[in-house]
């Protein structure tokens, strides 16, 4: 059972790392574009709302966000250890709670958009 659980956690971690490596440069670039004040058409309310209201859009956004926050949480746990914080249970509870909150909020907001 322990091994089976580990395989699932490792799979999610690897998937999150791969997905964030592929998607985040473009995501950061979009925030960069927003910061310049040149809002592209696809990010105007009407269009982005339509995208997030579609089931495909919701699924894409949710999968990217869900896997990314869990991936980041797992790595932040390691970062804490690397910087000399040896209270692993406390750190694990904190970072995985943040990931859980992120997952719930992402699901909640996506379901609200219709």
């Amino acid at each position, binding site marked *: 059972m322990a091994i089976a659980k580990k395989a699932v956690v490792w799979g999610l971690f*690897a998937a*999150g*790392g*791969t997905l*964030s*490596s*592929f*998607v*985040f*440069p*473009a*995501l*950061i*670039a*979009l*925030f*960069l*574009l*927003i*910061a*310049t*004040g040149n*809002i*592209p*058409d*696809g*990010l*105007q*309310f*009407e*269009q*982005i*709302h339509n*995208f*997030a209201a579609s089931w495909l859009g919701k699924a894409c*956004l949710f999968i990217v*966000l869900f896997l*990314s*926050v869990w*991936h*980041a*949480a797992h*790595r*932040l746990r*390691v*970062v804490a250890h*690397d*910087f*000399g914080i*040896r209270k692993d249970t406390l750190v694990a509870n904190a970072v995985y709670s*943040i990931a859980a909150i*992120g997952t719930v*909020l*992402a699901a909640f*907001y*996506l379901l*609200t*958009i219709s």
Partner: protein
Amino acid sequence: MSRNPYVRPVSTTTWYMRNGRYRVYVLHELTSFLVMFYSFLTIFALSALAGSAERWDAFLASQQSTAMLVFHTLALLYFMFFQTFPWFKLAPKAMPVRVGERKLPESYIIIGHYVAWAVISIFIFWLAGVV
């Protein structure tokens, strides 16, 4: 084995400063802050989007500043060079692909990742109406 083996004291907080490879490792690990930050920034954007057109426009306006422009530029470069590219480089080691008897050359897998990255990025820019 000696009864009192000598244990070289190693700092638990600054150990990576002793060696260039360790420093690069820590720089790789720290990109996890960016993953978390941009995930939550996107979730925050979704909260505005779930509100109203006014709240979405207010969100867009709140993101427009020189400070954010500089931050995103640095974050983009840091993320690409310390997460995306190293992840692609590592991929053939983590997921070696076999074709029949032979192993697919590592360079094929790495190039495949770069091509997929370009396609995904262009698709996201297309969705956003940039290209």
